[in-house]
Each structure stands twice: as C-alpha cells, then as structure tokens.
C-alpha cells in the first residue's frame, strides 16, 4: 500500500507542475505584469517609472517562461514562472501582490470558516441524500417515487443563487428567524451557520437524491438482494445492511474525492453570506489580478484533488476486499 501511495505521489509531481504552468500561461495571457502593476498601484497618477519599480520590487520584471539573454540554466530559472512556482513545492505561498499579506497565514485563518459551513453542509446533505434516495428506491414505481424524482429534477434545475436569495428572503427577512448574513467566532457563529447550511443542503438535494437513487436501484435489482429477501429478511435490513454496503463503491467515488475540497469553501455561498472563507478569498484575488494568491489557490486545489483521488482509491480497499493495490 505504501509503495502504491508513493507511486501515486510521484505521478502527481508532473501533474502539479503542469497545472502551475497552465495557470501561468492563462493568467499572463489575460494580464501582463504591467496590467497587474497598474491595477495594484491604483487608477490615478500612475507613471511608467512607478510601474517599472513595482515590477522590479515584486519580481515581475523577468520574462514569464524563458529568459533569452541569460546563460545556461538561468534561461529557465531567471523567470517569473520558476521564481514564483518553485517555493510552492514546499508550500511557501509567499505574499499577496496586492497588499503584501502572508498567503499561508491567510489560508490557515480562512480555512476554518469555510469548513464551518461546508462540513455540516456536506455531512447533513449526504445523510439526507442517501436516506431519501433509499426511500425512493424502496418505493420504486409508485407515485411517491415518481413525484420524488420529479421534485428532485425540479430542485436540481433551480439555480443555487435562487436558493440563496429565496432562503435569505424567507427565513431571514419574512420569518426573521436567522441573520441574513454574517459570521462570528465560537458559539456565536451557530446562528450564522444555520441558514447557509439549510440552503446548501436543499440546493444540492435534487442532484444527490437522483444520483444515489440510480445507484440503489442498480443494486436492489441484483441477485443477492433477491436472495436476501427470499431468506425472509425485512426490507429495512435488505436496504440498509446489504444494498447500502454494496453500493459503497460509487458512493465513495463521489464522496471521498469531495472531502479535501471542503477546505476550499463555496464561492457563491461565502460571498452572499459574508463568510470569510477561502472561496471568497479566491474570487477577490481573481478580480484584483493578484497572481500570488491565484497561483497559490490553484496549486492548493490541484494538491487537494490528487489527495482526494488517492483517498478514494484507499477507501475502495476498505469497502471491497476484492480491490487490491497493485
């Protein structure tokens, strides 16, 4: 297993470098270092000398990928890409281009509000998705199944934005049960979490229920379920003990890969509920053309994705003894 994990980590290195390369290509295709300097220095009274000085002070005066006048390896190392990407390998994210804050520290701080929302949303959502999907599978072919699926399709067709604005209007403004937006620390954060969590769970319910219903339907039509029923097992035991256990592979594929991304937060949710998480951090950085934050967040995203995939593979062996690391 250890060999397998090490091999997967080694495979990940070119992927991570590739992701960094692609990020730099795309970013500098849209923004030149001059654009960045002008945006960051402000819109009034910016002179060419100030732009040059800013680039020099922040290491953006070098060529992006290839430094022709240099000799030997310096052609590659004396570049923006090399200078800015290399420290990422040991998770040194450096400082923001825009306001010089420590990006690593900011990620550590903002990770918790993101988790405070995404973790309960994910857990509650998963439990509800599985439970409702199983119920629909149990009532397959009945009016409950039919209307359940129709409702799920309707729910998945509605934009998340609608859920957010509608939820804030109904629960925050009309019923006045929860603060419309905001965040706090400690126990005081609870009142701010309820509304986004409820809305987050509801907005993803349709898609989750449909997916897991399909998974369960596939399982309950298999021979071993018929055998279980023939043995006289109750429907509850058939569903929760046998069908659920055997449906774990597709469930895990969907679930485990999502776990690392819980740190990453939700872009829209955090903005509308004024939650100081990582999702908002990324959006703001893109808007402000802060390459230091953008590359750090993309790098972190690629690492989290790889971790998610490795965790998924490991989890397969736990639920299915037939799967082996080879």
């Amino acid at each position: 297993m250890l060999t397998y994990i090490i091999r997967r980590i080694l495979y990940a290195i070119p992927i991570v470098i590739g992701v960094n390369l692609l990020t730099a290509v795309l970013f500098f295709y849209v923004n030149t270092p001059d654009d960045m300097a002008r945006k960051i220095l402000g819109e009034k009274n910016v002179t060419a000398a100030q732009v040059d000085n800013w680039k020099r002070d922040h290491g953006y005066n070098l060529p992006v990928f290839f430094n022709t006048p240099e000799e030997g390896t310096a052609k590659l190392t004396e570049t923006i890409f090399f200078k800015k990407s290399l420290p990422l390998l040991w998770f040194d994210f450096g400082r923001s281009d825009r306001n010089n804050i420590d990006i690593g520290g900011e990620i550590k701080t903002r990770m918790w509000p993101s988790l405070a929302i995404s973790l309960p949303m994910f857990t509650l959502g998963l439990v509800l998705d599985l439970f409702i999907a199983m119920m629909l599978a149990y009532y397959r072919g009945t009016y409950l199944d039919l209307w359940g699926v129709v409702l799920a399709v309707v729910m998945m067709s509605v934009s998340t934005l609608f859920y957010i604005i509608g939820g804030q209007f109904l629960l925050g403004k009309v019923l006045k049960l929860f603060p419309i937006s905001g965040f706090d620390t400690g126990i005081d954060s609870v009142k701010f979490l309820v509304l986004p969590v409820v809305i987050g769970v509801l907005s993803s319910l349709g898609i989750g229920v449909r997916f897991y219903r399909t998974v369960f339907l596939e399982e309950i039509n298999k021979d071993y379920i018929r055998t279980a029923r023939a043995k006289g097992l109750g429907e509850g035991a058939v569903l929760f003990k046998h069908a659920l256990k055997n449906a774990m592979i597709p469930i895990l594929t969907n679930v485990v890969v999502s776990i690392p991304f819980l740190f990453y937060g939700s872009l829209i949710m955090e903005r509308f509920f004024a939650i100081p998480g990582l999702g908002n951090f990324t959006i703001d950085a893109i808007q402000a053309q802060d390459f230091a934050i953008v590359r750090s967040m993309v790098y972190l995203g690629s690492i989290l994705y790889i971790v998610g995939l490795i965790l998924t593979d490991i989890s397969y062996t736990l639920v299915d003894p037939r799967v082996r690391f080879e």
Partner: protein
Amino acid sequence: MLIVFLVLSGGCTPNDPYRASDTGANTFYSTFFEPPKHLDPARAYSSEEYDFLAQIYEPPLQYHYLKRPYELIPSTVEDVPAPAYYDRDGKRLPHGAAPEKVAKAVYEITVRKGILYQDHPAFAKGPDGEPLYMNLSPSDLKGVDEVSDFKVKGTRELKSDDYILEIMRLADPEIASPVLPIFEKYILGLQEYSEALRRDLDGIRKERREKAGLSYNQEADEKANPVILDYRKHKLPGVERVDDHTFRIILKTKYPQFVYWLAMPFFSPVPEEAHLFYKQGALADRNITIDRFPIGTGPYMMETFNPNMEIILSRNPNFHYEEYPKEGEAVDAEKGLLKDAGTRLPFADKLVFKLEQEVIPRWNKFLQGYYDNSGITSDSFDQAVSFSAAGEAELTDAMKEKGITLLTSVRPSIYYTGFNMLDESIGGYSPEKQKLRQAISIALDFEEYIEIFNNGRGIPAMSPIPPGIFGNKDGKDGVNRYVYEWDDAKKRPVRKSLEYARKLMAEAGFSNGRDKNGRPLVITFDNPWTGADSTPMINWYIKRMRLLGIQLENRTTDYNRFQEKMLKGNFQMFSWGWNADYPDPENFLFLLIGSNSKVKYQGENVSNYSSPEFDRLFKIMENMDNSPERLKVIDEMLAIAKKDSPWVWGHHPVAFGLYHQWMSNIKPNSMANNTMKYLRVDPELRKKLRQEWNSPNLWPLAIIAALIILGSIPAVISVRRRLGRAKR
C-alpha cells in the same frame, strides 16, 4: 435545532447579527464593500481606505463639516498655513506674485501642543527607557495576532518630526506612494531624495543577493529581515524642522492648491517609533504591519482589523479636545445640525463596519435596522425612492413609515465620453471637426441617459467643473451654448434639436452621416463595460449615434486592454470618469491640459486635448486665489473647451444616502472623510425599533411542519403495510 437556536439568541431578536452584549451600545453600524488594500497613510488612495484611515490619522488640516463652499480649518495645527513666496535671490515676494518669479514657496506649520497618540506598543518602554517591543522574535509573539494583544502600551506627544517623517516616507521606494510623482514636481528636492533612496534600496538588495548566492529569494529574505532605509542619510531640502512643534514645507514653485493636500491622509503624522516597530520581520510574518494597524492621534483607533469580516474602531481615550462646529450654512440650524454645537467630539463609542459584498443582504439588513446607513443600488431604488410631479426625489411610503431620512449631494466627480483628439477622423481642431463633435454632444442625450441608467441620480454636465466647485455656474450663465439653448419660460437649459445636430454634421462634411464620397462615418467606442447590465448602455450609445447616421462600432474590452488602448492612443471615442482630490477647479481643468496628455506624457488628459490658449490660461488660473479675476479666466478656458468639445461633458453623479431615525448630525460632505466623529446615535431608540421590526414569525413554520407530518402519514402507512406483507 430551532428551539436551541432561539434559546442561544438569549432573548434578542433571533435574526440579530450582533452579540447580545452589544445591544443598546453607543455604536455606529455600517458596512464596507471591499476590504481596504492599504491603511498606510503614504499609500492609501481610495475612498474605501479613507473611510477608516481618516478616523484614525490626523493630517494638519481638515474640511469644515457644515460650511459650504468647502472650507479648510486646522486639525492638529494652530492655523491654516499661508505660503511665503521668495524669488531666486531669496527676497520675499508679495502674496500675488507672478508664478514665474516665485523660486520658493514656504509653508510654515505649527503643530498644537499637548496632542497625544493613541496607546500603542510601539511607545512602550522598559525599565531602562528603551523600547520594550524591539528586536522581537517569533517566540516573543505567541498569542499576538493584533496590536491590541500586546500587554504594555504607551503614548507620546505629537511632534513636527512625525509629519516630516511621513513626507520622507512618501519617497520610500518600498512604500511606492501613489502621489510621489505629483509631489516630486512641487516639493523641493523630493525627486532627488526619492532617487537616492531608490539607489540605497537597490544597493542593499544587490549586496544581500551577492552574499546569499544563487539560492537568494528576495521575497523570503525581506519577509524575515525587512529593509530599513536610513531616511536621514540624505538631505531633503523641501522639509525643514524648526522646533519640536514647527516645521516648514518648501515648494519649488507657486502651487496654491497645496493646502488641500494638507487635509489628505498623505500628510498624516507617523512616529518614528511606529515606523521602526512595524519594520520587524517577526511582526510582518504575522501580518502586523502599518498597512493594517494604523497609529494615530484621531478620535478613533483600530480595535479589530479583520478585513475579511469586520473592522472595528473604538474611541481613542487620548483624543485631544475638539468641539462640534458652532456655525454652518444658514439652513443648518433649522435642520437641527447645530444642536450639538460646542459639544466635545466624538459622539459614538465604537464604529463597527461589516463586510457585505452583496447588495441584497446589505439592503435587507439595513431595513431590519442592523445597519444605521445605506446607499441605494439600482435593485432597491424603486423600493426606496420615488419622484414627485416636480421631479424631486422623495422617499417611498414604506421608507417614510420607518422614519428613514434621504440625503442627496452632488459628488465632485464627472463621468464623460471623450474623443481622441489625435485621431484623424474624430480629433483635430478645424471648425469641421469641432462641429462634428458638437453634433455628437447634442445627440448623446444625457438627460435621457441619467433617467434610464442612473434612476435620475445625476446632473447633466455643462463643463468639467461640478456644482459646488469654484468656476461652476448654474442657470443661464453656465449653459453650454454649443449643446443647449436657455429656455426663459422654463428657466432651464433645453438640449438643441437633432435637426440642428444634423445641420452641424452636414457642415462638418458628413451629411446624413456620410462623407462626400458617400461612405458612412464609422466611429469606434472603447469602454471597459463587461458587466451583464452594460449591453443596454452600449445599445443606447449606438441608437443615439444612429440618429445622426453615424455607425458606432462598440469595442468593449476588459479593463487591462482598455487601459492599454488609452495609453497607446488606439481609440476614437471612450468613456471615462474623474473624482476630485480637492475642491478646486484646477483639479478638473488639468484633465485637459496638453502637458498632461495620456499618449505623450501618460497623464490624465485621456482625450489628448491640446490647446495652446487653454494651456496658457491654465497656468495663470492655477496660481490664482478664488476671485472674480480667476472666475473670468476659468470662463475663458471653458469657452475654448466647449467650442473644441474634446468631451461630451456627460454628467455629475448625485449620491443618495439613507439614514435611520436614530441617527443625527448628518450632512453629506464630499470632501471630508473624517466625518464619523460628528455622527450621533440614539442607541435606546434603535434598540426599541429593532425589536419592533424583528420579532420572529413562527406560524408559517408550524404550517410547514403540519404539512410535512400530514404528507408523511400515507408513506408511514404504506411502509407498515409492506413490512407486514413481508413478514406474512
């Protein structure tokens, strides 16, 4: 979950976003849309940053809160300094001396005695009298995340050295002050001084790089060991220390507008203790920098700086004595704005600003009483404001019921549509080209534009100078005769007809929008309007231009490309805006002088307009005090610019602000940023109304719960039956 939540809300309204302990506190609650990038006074240059900075730092001067036109008054100094002019031989010149004779303009500034800084760890001293918190290591900072976490703090008196240090900081290449290029033109020796500091910085960096070898990482090194430039190593002749409380700023030319800059945060005092304190690597590593934790003498000090969530300023107990103004405009007493005359400032104990980046939650929380003030976005405009038959903006009944107050003020800004005067088809100064631009100015009906796109929140511009700024004339005298006629009966300007515009087009050689060869006139329109709601605006421009037979080719690009095009002059028509730094016509008219051309000098004259006569008059006007003579020169300048029409003058925006009934002493002031100290809150009334407005509605929940239970009954019965069948 709901019951637990209601219990946790501790008897408050459950949708209250604040802690129970904050209820009834003398706190002003507001919002901010974008986290401030910089709170270093040498660097900050946006209104989002000034909202906080101006409550903490005190530059030498400030604007009178109530008087109009805007008037400068002392803040931390004895008087508004009057410049003393000298010629090349050092001979004193009279106040009205011709600018070309002035070799030096000296501003002597006397700081008031007894003004103290807020308590701050930078001033803390050990038993040996040495700074307590210098040479800090990471281990010394366990549990320290903010300046308030330091146990020992101290203070000291404000001195002239602190103002001098800040002027030196403007030249620091590491700080990269946005106003350095402006002051290099005026402050004696500042350019040479900033170049010397740049050389020092480059030298230190080179030395460090050579010492460390190939593995050198400048960013990591400077994070751990910040570069501290020695400001005293070089002489800055433009600043002289006279004594502990007096200093002089020496300009190399006559520049009467300089006093306005003395009211901006760039000239705020920074004590050397703080400058050195914040240059410690261990602090920078924890993001404790002067860019996030200001240190000032103002009415408030930074209590919590969490730009991702909230910024809290609390009353500075060391704030010097300052009174609420005793006089204002004639109507101010009638409006109750002088009730607090002579009362000590500030009124609110705390200022709490919450980050709200989305307009809907922000607006709803204002209506619930959780924010004390609010702007009005297009989304909520109809809900808040209606127009009377006379065209006056007034609050809707729903707002009136809540006792909300609407205050409007013309902003010292202009949004205009410009022409590239270097362009062959649309630029140039021949009578034909003037007529072409005048015709377009008539066709682009900004009365209609303001009505459609700004909900009526704007005033069509007759010139670049907005109302409230010297040089602006309202009524018949101020009308732009090339675009409007004055209607004596209606007593207002009326836009010239499209027929007249078409006649001008024909005289310009473009009859029905076609040249003598029958080719259509095609003009490109550059703008950075990439938002979803920009399409109607672009279509409006196309439609209006089509009325003259002109084909407008839209070239929307992202802001970066737009800027690049403006810099290179690769455009014909464009959209732009300007927000004044200070209330003087010079700050608007300089947008049209040749030496400020964007293409040639990277200045702010984006149209690249160049009129020798306009430039000559500008030089005279910029050095004059406000007087009938100055007004005459301005009139002449405006006449030239209006005839040349390098801009379609566009509009001056009008700001609409809403305030709850528990707020008082509110008067919009577009120039002053330090106005929070004047605001008074009635916390008891706010508490009462918040409770009235926010008692929860639980009955719909009971109905939903009943429906769920009823809906579940068939399912439960069905399950029981199935299980029963399975058992049998």
